[in-house]
């Protein structure tokens, strides 16, 4: 609205990307408006529900609070970047097999956060699962099935 937009360059789901962003624009808005990526989505607008989860240089951020300008020269991954063509990521497969979603609005956020969890803790304890996923809310209350999906995904990702 106020200050002038400036260009940012970054990697988006493995491909180079650039766009003009105004200082007030959030990463979730920019990814939706300029790149038609609707996996990250704003819900609570306070960084409390996790629906807008985006990976920035490997760290999960709330895209509704993260200013797009900060993404300059970063590596960005959204849920759209997980599958390899038609082959789903093991975490995505696990969420389907465990029936770990209902309305699906929060699902991209949970899936991205699960990939973070399993990167850091390939065999997560119950407490680690709850710790990593405590910033993602599911109003359909599908948590038991999500925990099952995380365990299933850990098995799928286990080497050998």
């Amino acid at each position, binding site marked *: 609205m106020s200050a002038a937009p400036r260009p940012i360059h970054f990697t988006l789901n493995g491909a180079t990307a650039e766009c003009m962003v105004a200082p007030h624009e959030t990463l979730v808005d920019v990814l939706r408006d300029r790149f038609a990526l609707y*996996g990250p989505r704003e819900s*609570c607008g*306070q960084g409390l529900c996790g629906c807008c989860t985006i990976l920035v240089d490997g760290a999960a951020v709330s895209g509704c609070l993260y200013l797009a300008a900060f993404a300059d020269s970063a590596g960005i991954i959204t*849920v759209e970047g997980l599958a390899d063509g038609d082959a*789903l990521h093991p975490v995505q497969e696990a969420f389907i097999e465990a029936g770990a979603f209902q*309305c699906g609005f929060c*699902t991209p956020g949970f899936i991205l956060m699960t990939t973070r969890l399993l990167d850091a803790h390939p065999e997560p304890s119950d407490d680690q699962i709850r710790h990593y996923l*405590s910033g993602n809310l599911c109003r359909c209350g599908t948590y*038991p099935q999500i*925990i099952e999906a995380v365990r299933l995904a850990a098995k799928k990702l286990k080497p050998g």
Partner: protein
Amino acid sequence: MSEAKVMPGQAMPGGQIGRSLPRVEARAKVTGRAEYIHNLRLPGMLWAKIARSTVPHGCIRGIDTSAAKAMSGVHSVVIGEDILTVIPDPYFGPAFHDQPILALGKVRFAGEPVAVVLAEDPKIAEAAAQEISVDYEELPAVYDEIEAMTSTAYVHDELKPAGMFADLKHLAGKRDTNIALGYHLRRGDMDTAFAEADHVFEHTFRTPQQMHTPLEPHCAIADATSAGVTVHSSTQTPSSVRVEIARLLGLPENRVRVRTAFLGGGFGAKVYVKMEALAVALSLLARRPVKVALTMEEQFFTISKHGSTFRIKSAVTKDGRITARTCEVIYNGGAYADIGPRVAQKSGFSAAGPYDIANVAIDSYETYTNRPTAGALRGFGMPQLVWAYESHTDLIARALGLDPVEFRRKNLLRDGQPQATGTVLKDTATGAVLDRVCERIGWGRAFDRGSGTTRRGRGIAIGLKASIAPTTSVATIAVAADGSATLYCGTVDMGQGSTTALAQIAAEALGIDAEAVRVVAPDTDVTPYDMGTLGSRSTFHMGNAVRAAADEVKGKLAAMAAETGVPAGTNLPIAEIFRRKYGMQAGTIVGSGSFVPDYVSPDHATGLTPNATPYWMTGGSGAEVEVDTETGQVRVLRLVNVADAGVAINPRMVETQLTGAAVMQLGFTLSEEMVFTDGQLRNPNFADYKIPGIRDMPDRLDGETVAARQESGPYGAKGVGETGTFGVSPAIANAIHDAVGVRITELPITAEAVYRALRQAAGDKLPEE
């Protein structure tokens, strides 16, 4: 952690019923590509941002929009009087035509839409909306439902029933009241029963106003032209929205198109007109597509769950038979009726609970107050009522020194017995549900009751709910020349899995695999009428319509086969029959089916009816809790939800609905409350209004069904979306009582509430809140 125990039911020949098929849209949801109206934008679209009332009740003296209009990037500013130029009578609502599209002359709650800014950039619209200033003359207001019953601060000058429901017509033109509807039931001889009672118990229970908080906030995009109107909406009720928009515009239904996609949750928040009428009016004024997309905060000012007060009184014999029960339920409906009058009436039917009681008096009231509007939330009032009557039931058992389960068994209403309305219970497994809850929670078995400052207890509860009747569903199935089938129906998939379950029903009826059935998303241009996706009605009503449509398809296919000389009972592929008829891959067979259950409206004087509902839903919960007696903190260790779902079409999804409902109700039980000061909502956001997260999960949470069959349902099925909400709150309160001997009578059961009750029981004085 979660143990799937949903009964597969009797195997059907097609093998499609009782199949735990993953959701047909699963892949779209895990890749972020599932369609939500939230994601939709149209070429040339304007964004609308709403300026809301800052006072709970007042006359509008003037609205100054000049600063907003002067802002760069603002397309226009719209107030209530502008709406009148395109919609002369802009009042809407499913039960009462009482809600203006934008406030006209008066505001009735703090947060009511007063003006709208349109702009191409939503951020500009939002900033400009802040610049609108409104001059109000404040009026006396009423917030509490008990006060509303007698207050002379009237929210509306007169009642304006919509005419959609025949049994509300008598209320037209009624003045000087905040009671939108009273439902009254009288059965038996109350005076004698209470006079002859060995014991009389009376308690009052309350629940606060709460909110659905679907993670996809309400949104609607309208594109209005002289040819008609298209509305893309996150609605649970496309057909009902079409009927209402057509009425407001004076257009035939076929000029109004309402379509939706997957919903990011609904839970009753998105039934009937919400943002659609505003979007349509704005599009007519701007002559461009307009998107109204609410924030999470704004949803709190759009629709909510009724706060309530329930006074319940029972006459009981010394050996533990309940002989009479008086129920006075007062719902806090907020400023506009929405579907609240139906909530008051339908829940009123079973306010006395799943018990065989000869003498019953029920008075269930919907009141107007100067709060945000309340409507339907996953149970149509029933969770508020079960909370009260199952807490009451436990208190009676404890006072009489009876085992709470044995006391319930002794009084339980069972299949074949008349319920309070006089309607006989049929295909309703109350006994099996109660037994199974007890088994799963280990009722009667010794357990670790804790020690020192950590105490454990167990509690159970059971509820019964009537379905929403009379309502209609229509379905169409088209079979293409290659034999593939497409199902057209207006049922909205908001996460409950209807797309998958209805595909399974269609597939079973057609003798094909569910994966081969394509289900078209609701779009009133192509999908036939359906009253709405609400009240756990779709599996039963739409399922029956789908079955009927499939039967018609099969009949036409058989006729076509006969016509082309194919012998009956052939296993010739469908494609070959088409080829014989049309000489090539061509043609379509269309079958349609509709379903409307029998229903008898309750007698106005007695509230009795021989047919209150096409089916009953019954569900029970068992809870084991741990209470920290130093802090009042409650931890739910185990929670089990058991339901009669008839035959489960998709057992996995039924189980997920039951555990999901338990989680949602856990929030309504332990943390969620819309907090007001002088009519101003203090916590319309997730920082201050806490919904359950993964850390709030019980150590163990199970959902399961009992072996049951709804003979009138499709393949024996009935609805289940709401059933898992019934027993959770009272089961937890009863478990807390079991653990530490104190009774909480008001939700939410916060640590502070338990702490205060513990201190009071110990005789300590604490400062007031």
